[in-house]
Every structure is written in C-alpha cells, then in structure tokens.
C-alpha cells in the first residue's frame, strides 16, 4: 500500500473485565478504499468499529483515524468521519428534510451548503415527493439509503457502516452498494461490516474476524486463492468454524 493510509491500527484491544472482545488487531486502510470487515456474530466487529469512531475507548494498542489518535483526539476524529449504526438512528419523528438539515447543522455546514445538499440528496435518492414526510413512514430500504446519505452529508474522510443492509431485499441492497461506490469514487473511504458474503465480493479488501482476532486480510480474490475456495462463503465458513465463542 503506497497510497495514503487513513486508518492505521496497531495492536488495538478492548476488554470488558475478563472478556477480550477485540484482541490485538492491526491493519491499515487507504484513502478511497472499500474495506470489508467480516465476522460471525459476536466476533468483535462492532466493538472494533466503535473504537475507531471514538464511541468507545480502547483498552490498549494504537489507532490513528483520519490522522488523529483514538485515545487523545476522539472529538477531532468525529469531525472527519460518518457513521451508520446497525440500529436505524435517524429521527423518525422528523421529516427527511429536517433530518438532513439537523445533521448538516451539527457538522457545521452553512445554510447554503445544507440547502444544496438537501436538493442533491433528495434528487439523487428520488425522494422529491417525500421530502416533507416523516421518516417513520418510509420503507426500510429507503430509510437505510437515507441514513447512509445523511452519514456522509458533511463529506467525511471515512464512513463507517455497521451492517447497513440488514433486512432489505436484494434489489435495494444492490442500490445501496451503488451509493457506496459513488462515495468511494468521491474519495470517501468506506469501512463496512457485513455478514452477506456477496457483499464481501464488492469490497476492495476484506478482513475476517474470529473470536476478536483478525484471521485473514486480503482482496476477495486473494482470500479465495489462499483458502482454496470458489466463493467468499466457503472462505468464511472455513475460518468461522474455528471459532470457540458461541453466538
């Protein structure tokens, strides 16, 4: 990797009492890359991601996100990242427009920028007729696309997506990934956890976590070759079987 690295992780660890949720993980992610973060339920993906977002303080190790240290400069990181959690977390009792306006405002966008963003997003997501309806009235797939768009409303360096496509149909998932590619082309680094193996194929590089450790990290092609498999599914099963932790 000769390109500029926006995430540099070295020996990052998080334990809750005796339980080591994330166990000395190390990796780098470069600018504009789509980085897939795979693992069975309970493997430690979400915990690792929350540390990188500054939502959770690591127990030990080192990590730089967008050039800032996760221990000392969590708030500076937050200015430069977007985040979309597993649980849908836009305000359901606000309209689409109001949500965009709110998050834009919080990230310090000017009024004009917010107006432009709103127009762009509404047009891009084909929500012209719905911009004044409450978010709770939208179908799940639309909500998730909206949540993603709001997460990058301030054009962050990196966006973290935690299982963004849970529970949506394949067509919508496809559309969602188009949004991800768009973002990546605009230079936004995408860090995404998923357990859909077809999605793993869309990533530039994939890491697989088992029991809090990173067992494998390579391009999807490279992984399939190393583990002598025809699909990512097979790679994943081979690795995940080693897991000791239950769900």
């Amino acid at each position, binding site marked *: 990797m000769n390109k500029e690295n926006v995430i540099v992780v070295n020996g990052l660890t998080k334990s809750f009492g005796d339980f080591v949720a994330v166990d000395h993980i190390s990796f780098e992610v470069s600018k504009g890359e789509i980085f897939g973060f795979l693992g069975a339920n309970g493997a430690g993906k979400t915990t690792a991601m929350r540390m990188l977002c500054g939502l959770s*303080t690591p127990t030990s190790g080192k990590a730089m996100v967008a050039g800032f240290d996760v221990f000392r400069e969590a708030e500076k990181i*937050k200015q430069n990242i977007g985040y979309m959690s597993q649980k849908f*977390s836009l305000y359901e009792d*606000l309209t689409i427009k109001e949500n965009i306006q709110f998050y834009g*405002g919080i990230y310090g966008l000017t009024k004009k920028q917010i107006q432009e963003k709103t127009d762009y997003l509404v047009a891009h997501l084909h929500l012209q007729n719905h911009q004044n309806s409450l978010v709770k009235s939208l179908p799940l797939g639309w909500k998730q696309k909206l949540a993603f768009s709001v997460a990058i409303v301030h054009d962050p360096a990196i966006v973290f997506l935690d299982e963004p496509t849970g529970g949506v149909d394949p067509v919508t998932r496809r559309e969602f990934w188009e949004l991800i590619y768009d973002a990546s082309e605009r230079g936004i680094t995408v860090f995404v956890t998923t357990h859909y193996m077809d999605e793993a194929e869309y990533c530039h590089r994939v890491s697989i976590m088992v029991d809090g450790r990173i067992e494998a990290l390579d391009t999807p092609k490279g992984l399939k070759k190393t583990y002598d498999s025809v699909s990512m599914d097979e790679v994943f099963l081979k690795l995940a079987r080693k897991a000791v932790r239950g769900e």
Partner: protein
Amino acid sequence: MRVLKYLLQKEFRQIFRDPSILRIIFMIPTLQLIIIPMAADYEVRNINLAVADHDHSVYTQQMIQKIKSSGYFKLVNYSSTFQEAVTSIEADKADIVLEIPAKFEQNIVREDHASLFLAVNAVNGMKANLGAAYLQNIIQNYNNQIRTKWVQFPPIPPQTNINVSVSNWFNPMMSYKYFMVPAVLATLLTLLGTFLTALNIVREKEIGTIEQINVTPIKKYHFILGKLIPFWILGLVVLTIGFLIMRFGYQIHPVGNMLIVYLFASLYLLSILGLGLLISTYADTQQQAMLISFFLLMIFIMLGGLFTPIDSMPAWVQKLTWLNPVSYFIDVVRMVVLKGSGLSDIKNHIFVIIGFAIFLNSWAVWNYKKTS
C-alpha cells in the same frame, strides 16, 4: 452557537410533532391547578358529632343547641345509649361522641359540678385535637352562661384580666386558597420539568439516535443546553398559564412583584431541569428514569412544605430540606405572592437555587459520556 441553533430547532420540532405529549404538558397542570386547591382545605370544620344523652334535660338541649349553632359541628346521631354512639364512630359516621350522664342538670345545680365524657376518633390526630378543643370551648362558654345566671358577681376578678388581641397578616380572609394555589403550581411545574427532561435523553438512548449524535463532533454542553432550553421555555409558558389562573381564576392578587417570582422561577426551572437531565444520563431505560425521578420528587414534594409544615418535621428531616430545591421554590412563591417579600428577603434562596442549577447541570454534562 450555530450548532446550538440546530439542536434547538430539532428539539422544538420533536416536541410540537407529538400532540399527545403537548396536550398532557398543558392539560394536566391546568386541570389540576384548577381542581386541587379547591379540595385542599385543612380547616377543621364539619365535625360530625354523636350525642349519647342519658339526661334529656333542658340544659342538655340548650347545650346541644349551642354546639350546633357554632357552625363547626354537625349532629349526626342522637341516642340514649353510649354503645350506639360509639358504633357511629366505628363506622366513621361520627368524629366525636359526647356522652351526657344521667342527672347532669341536677348535678350542676345541686352538687356544683357535673362531668361530661368525650370520646374522640383520633386516627387523624390533628383533627381530633382541634375538634376536642373547639367542643370544650363551647362547653366552657355554656358553663359561663349558666354561672352568670346563678351567680351575681363575675367569676374572675377584673384586675387580673389579660386581653389578647390576635391579628392574622398576609391572608386577611384566612383563605386556604391563597396558601395552596402558589404551592400547587410550584409542585406541578416541578413534576412536569423533571419528568420531561428525565425521559428525554434516555429516550434517545432507547431508540438509538444518541449513537448518531455521539459520533458527531458536537460539544457535550451544547447537547445538554439543547435539551435544557426548550423545556425551560415550555416551563415558563406553563408557569405563565398558572399565574393567569391564579390571578383571574382564583382572584389572588400578588402582593409582591411578579417579576421577582418569574426571575426565581426561571432559575428554579434550570435547576430542576438539570436534575431531570442528570437522571436521564444515568438511566438505561425510560422506565428507570421515570422511577428514579418519581422517587426523588415524591420525597422532595412531600417534604417541601406543600401539605404539612416543615417546622413540625423532626430535626434531621428539616436538615434534609436544605437539599430540597422544591422547598425553596414553594417558600419563595408564597413569600412574594402573599407577603410581598422583596429581592433582599429572598437573596439567600436565590443564591442556593443558582448553586443547584450550576451543580446539577454541570454534573449532567460531566456524566453524559460520548465515549464509553
């Protein structure tokens, strides 16, 4: 500052989007402020009296007549057996039994003294005490009446007479409403402010939106201020409605300066909202937040002097009232509205309440953790 503007805009939108909550915010305090003070009247009157008369003489009739005409007592049972009268106490029909022995009249005239027996239902000690005192007083008056009829000279030599004149200030009509309305308003405002803020942050925790906030570079105090200010304004609106009801509904004309009450109320609201926010930062669920605030508020309100005098509480409880914001507010509202106390009279109250506001809100900011 711009961030704060967006936070406030969002909070207000959410508040006005839910009409059922809004209705409750305005309706419950209004209705209760109209109804509760009418019901809250301590004055001991309408005491139910049962008489067991074994004498049936002219004197007993005169005495009973005198008791009835005092306006404090209602004769609910008149019988010839003590047992019947006591049964009416047991059934809660009567509060006091007056037993008049046989030969009552005869004893007064011939033996120079006769006894009466009073049995008082003392489950409510206060009512029992005052009721018995009133009754004794009437009987003594009747006694004097008989005496002056039989004896020519006044019973008490004039040179030792002390004339006691009593005047009651600040509430010339001696109306309970003057006392209760301001305090009920204070209580309702407290309940509303604490509950709403206590439920607010924790609600964002429950539905998960707080994660999205925590991952933004928003400042902690901006976030808390964004929650504090909307409810502060709402509280002042409710307070104003309350004052209008007090002034035009109950015709209570504040003796003191209303601006002082507003000033104090605005500071008080900040502290009580801070308490709510603090609870909200500790709670995991709305249910917990509600239970904790209910627990604290019930203690604050019951010990705040709303219903029972703080002076009568044991010393250790009186010390606890120093930590009770509600007692300061009830105190100040009553002082200014009824007595016309000025800023210099309540300056200690003001300092303490500012202290509470700063302490509770800073604690809330400190305890709101963006990073776990």
